[in-house]
């Protein structure tokens, strides 16, 4: 019966994680497609036209999930990085490195869709509202993390330095958000809030939640694809990489 026990720590090595990730990726793409189909259906065909914002509000079905994911990925990335720092595991650092570009792109989508939503609603391509401004700073934090890792040649040092930066960032994100919110409420007479709808229709909420799930599955799928490439890049001189079928053929 003892061989029924799954030794999870086996997967903490890049060698065993590589094939596992390879098997998981198609499943996450499938889930992305399913949630995406349902979410887009709700976004366009079920959610009613808004009384005030007409059809323009439908952008929230990607703006809000992208914002949520950008913040969630940052925390997960910092968690992986911190784990790597504490336990000195290579794979944790690789996962953090794999997540960063996806998180940065989510932040970018949030900013882009925020601008495209703001232009018809409030007349300008950019509004200095608390959430968009915090999102912009989060984007800078991602770019800083990526830049720091790119500038350091030694991968282990890059992992650890990135981890410290990500952990400092994670502590600062709530402080930054609070300070920006304070700044915004004091300066804006008529506060422009992106989520000014007092009672959001049930369908809108469902649409956002399902699109958020879609984005989540997508992020995992892409991060796993990227981490496989990173594993190969960083483990080039190991035996198991040389024996891989993809390399041998």
């Amino acid at each position, binding site marked *: 019966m003892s061989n029924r026990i799954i030794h999870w720590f086996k997967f903490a090595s890049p060698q065993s994680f590589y094939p596992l990730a390879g098997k998981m990726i198609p499943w996450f793409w499938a889930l992305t497609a399913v949630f995406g189909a349902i979410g887009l259906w709700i976004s366009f065909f079920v959610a009613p036209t808004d009384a005030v914002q007409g059809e323009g509000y439908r952008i929230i079905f990607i703006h809000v999930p992208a914002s949520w994911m950008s913040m969630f990925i940052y925390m997960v990335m910092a968690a992986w990085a911190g784990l790597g720092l504490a336990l000195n595991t290579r794979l944790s650092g690789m996962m953090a490195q794999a997540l960063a570009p996806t998180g940065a792109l989510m932040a970018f989508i949030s900013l882009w869709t925020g601008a495209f939503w703001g232009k018809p609603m409030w007349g300008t391509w950019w509004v200095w509202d608390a959430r968009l401004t915090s999102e912009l*700073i989060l984007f*800078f*934090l991602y*770019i*800083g993390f990526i*830049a*720091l890792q790119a*500038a*350091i040649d030694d991968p282990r*040092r890059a992992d*650890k*330095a990135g981890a*410290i*930066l990500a*952990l*400092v*960032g994670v*502590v*600062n994100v709530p*402080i*930054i958000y*609070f*300070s*920006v919110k*304070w*700044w915004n409420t*004091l300066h804006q007479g008529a506060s422009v809030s992106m989520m000014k709808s007092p009672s959001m229709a049930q369908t809108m909420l469902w649409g956002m939640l399902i699109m958020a799930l879609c984005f989540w599955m997508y992020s995992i799928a892409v991060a796993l694809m990227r981490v496989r490439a990173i594993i190969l890049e960083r483990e080039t001189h190991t035996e198991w990489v040389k024996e891989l079928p993809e390399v041998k053929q």
Partner: protein
Amino acid sequence: MSAFLAIIRRDLLLAMRRKSEVLTALFFFIIVVSLFPLGIGPEPQLLKKIAPGILWVAALLSTMLSLNRLFATDHADGTLEQLVLSPTPLGLLVAGKIVAHWLTSGLPLVLLAPVLGVQFDLDASALGILVGALLLGTPLLSLIGAIGAALTLGVRGGGVLLSLLVLPLYVPALIFGAGAVEAHISGLGATGHLSLLAALLALAAFFAPWATTAALRVSLE
């Protein structure tokens, strides 16, 4: 404690021997502050309104410039390794270096700011609040900046990379610092902003030396 004071004295002595570094950062502060009216226009009402923001942004940028002085020169001549290997706790030595850095780059800004503030027609009480805010804010900038300086030690493109890493983290200090002066001018009172700034300073004084020490060990191994 004596090690802490010794390292402050040492860093101050070294800074005095290389006065040009300290003075260049100060002149940078003065020049940047003068650039804004040149770019925006001499209208007194407008300048009075944006003065706190300008002075704070210039202080941020000037601190950024002086941060590489913190560890790079000691790293280049091997002193930093000696400090890491010494029996004194590294956190204490790092804290001492940060204090010395503030004394040579932050404190001069605090003293210079009211002079420049007069150029923007800020009245005496506003200048007082500005000095208070900078007095609380500049050590905060040195503390946060030290983490960035330790992380980018010896890295290519260090200076610009350091700015990219540290400027987003400076945002709360900027908001509360400049906001304090604006709040005072508009009659709302600066106590809220200043207390938050003080709280951030306390938090950073506790955590930043620790994070900087970890970053130094990572950079030096």
